[in-house]
């Protein structure tokens, strides 16, 4: 066990190394590249056994990852943003193969306009693919979640790929203290992968990735994926317990922060939840009972855990760091679905914040608190709102001026 400063990307690379993966197909993309550079170095110098292959695209990368995993190899790969979308066809395909590979996605907002900083439209585009999703808040959680992900994915009750998500820049290039377990500790926690359903044995050939015609057979196999994902909730609980016993850190499907006795709750995910926790501390110092619910496992969706955590709250604000154009926030709809059947469901306020890595300032958290309190007093639910300050608006106006689109010009 070593305590050291690691970036989120280095923590991801260490996750793959400690899981002793057999195969890493790779393709670079900012802000993920440091992960595969680190792994390439280790494979090159021989500190990591196994095979590292540079592919010609993310599409090929995920094809290779799925095919290798279908022979019984333990596979790691990583991408980001446009790369994840380029591989999207294969996300659905390899999930259907029921191969337990782990894919790290380093969140970066999608084009257009093209940018490099994080939001979650990339990883949420993979939401319905059959890949499970774990979203990390810290560099420590990146490493830990990868180790947990292999044990969950490889469980015969699950056998689905897992995407471990970390935010670009906010985690990927940010160094912070990480406790790195020893290989022996990880070996005790994570047994070797030995599948019975998909492996390469020359003497016993099998056909995988088959085609079916007629909806019944297709329905059967697709729904098996759903049942497997449902199983992953209980498996996650068991794995989290074993992880706590092995390493002392505990992870739930969701994380409550100062939430039990709170009247109001913020719902957030990923690295910006840290900013949310700071806001909670500030409000608590003023005597206002606010807590935070962090969505950690997005698939399987932890509906019961969310309903239990938000039960009895006076009002709840969901900050979506994503935008379903023409609808609004993606997770607010999912949180609403988790609460809908509850008798005493709290009102839900919806915010879009942090798109393209935009910072969330105190002023914006203050606005949310004000809306929550007003809702408790009057029942008023404000329309879904973009978190965007006057200062940022002035900055945008200035940029538009530079771009020759100032108010002086006639349209």
């Amino acid at each position, binding site marked *: 066990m070593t305590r050291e400063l690691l970036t989120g990307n280095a923590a991801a690379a260490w996750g793959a190394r400690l899981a002793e993966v057999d195969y890493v197909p790779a393709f670079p993309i900012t802000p993920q590249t440091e992960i595969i550079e680190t792994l390439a170095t280790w494979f090159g110098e021989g500190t990591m056994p196994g095979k590292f292959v540079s592919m010609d695209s993310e599409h090929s990368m995920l094809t290779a990852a799925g095919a290798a995993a279908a022979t019984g190899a333990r596979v790691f790969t990583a991408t980001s943003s446009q790369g994840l979308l380029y591989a999207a066809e294969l996300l659905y395909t390899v999930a259907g*193969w*029921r191969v337990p590979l782990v894919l790290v996605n380093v969140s970066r907002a999608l084009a257009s306009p093209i940018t490099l900083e994080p939001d979650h439209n990339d990883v949420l585009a993979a939401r319905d693919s059959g890949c499970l999703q774990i979203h990390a808040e810290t560099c420590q959680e990146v490493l830990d979640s990868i180790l947990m992900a292999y044990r969950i994915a490889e469980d*015969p009750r699950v056998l689905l790929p897992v995407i471990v998500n970390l935010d670009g820049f906010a985690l990927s290039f940010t160094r912070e203290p990480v406790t790195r377990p020893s290989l022996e500790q990880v070996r005790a926690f994570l047994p070797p992968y030995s599948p019975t*359903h*998909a492996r390469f044995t020359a003497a016993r050939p*099998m056909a*995988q990735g088959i085609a079916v015609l007629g909806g019944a057979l297709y329905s*059967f196999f697709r729904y*098996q994926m759903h049942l*497997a994902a449902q199983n992953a909730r209980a498996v996650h609980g068991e794995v989290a317990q074993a992880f706590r016993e092995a390493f002392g850190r505990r992870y739930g499907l969701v994380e409550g922060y100062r939430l039990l006795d709170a009247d109001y709750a913020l719902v957030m995910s990923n690295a910006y939840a840290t900013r949310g926790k700071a806001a909670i501390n500030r409000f608590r110092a003023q005597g206002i009972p606010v807590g935070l619910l962090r969505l950690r496992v997005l698939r399987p969706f932890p509906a019961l855990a969310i309903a239990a955590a938000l039960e009895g709250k006076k009002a709840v604000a969901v900050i979506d760091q994503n935008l379903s154009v023409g609808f609004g926030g993606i997770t607010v709809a999912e949180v609403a679905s988790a609460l809908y059947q509850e008798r005493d469901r709290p009102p839900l306020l919806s915010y879009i914040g942090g798109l393209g890595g935009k910072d969330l300032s105190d002023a914006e958290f203050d606005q949310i608190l004000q809306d929550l309190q007003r809702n408790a007093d009057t029942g008023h639910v404000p329309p879904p709102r973009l978190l965007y300050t006057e200062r940022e608006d002035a900055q945008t106006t200035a940029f538009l001026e530079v771009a020759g689109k100032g108010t002086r010009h006639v349209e």
Partner: protein
Amino acid sequence: MRRIRFHGRGGQGMKTASRIVSTAAFREGYDTQDAPIYGAERRGAPMAAFTRIDHAPILERGMIAAPDLVVVADETLFDDPQAGVLRGLQASGTVLANSAHAPALLRERYGIVPALAVLDFTGLVLSHVGSLAALSVALGAATCRVAGLCTSSVEQAVQEELEALGLSADRIERNLDLARLCYERVDVWLPVQPAAVPAPVAVPRPQVVTLTYQGPWRGTPSVAAPANTPLRKTGNWRVWRPVIDLARCTQCWMCFVSCPDGAIALDDADTPHIDYEVCKGCLVCVEECPTHTIHTLREAEV
């Protein structure tokens, strides 16, 4: 509503036949629907197409499970359990079959109970148009007659459908002659729906069940059984049978190497033999044989 199900092999034109019937009915003011279903498209594989005709808007979609009329372009499909030619056919229904054999023989061979009309459409097509693709027009026109549609709308439908396929005016004219001929030849057949419709037999409705998790061995889409392609006999796909005249064969093996299905094997004397259980009748061997030693026989005449 009239529900018509067409069965054929890929390339025999049953999709077009279903469209001709649908278009003809549409031109007469009916509400109609037509749709084909096939797997990965390939010539020779069993396919089906569907036409619905009604006076009111049609509130059905997809395959026709209980047809009034079944049209069969290739009698060998009666023997193919995958094609399910007679499946769900109403007792009051009708079968319109393309065969060179007599109705009594088909009834005996395939256990056909409902009304049956048989004609050697392939023979008519070969003598009047020359291209087997014209089976679409022949069976489309005949089906229109059985469905009670008038001759002018049949001609209009054939014209429209063949123009859409890009056929020359000359070829369309020959197809129209064929359509008139086939339409005339079926006038003695039973109506689709006789006056007295027997009460439908109550079929027990299946229960909706709850799927449970099956574990990776059963629950993942893989095949663990050894290679099963040899179980699928494709010999009945043939319209034309290639026959090697062994007395003239020079044993050059061109047929052996060019057969796309590996249906030609060499014996101990290096003489090629065709496995007729597998040969689909693509006739590549006939094309490739440099000494023109492989001739063809119409399968119905073998």
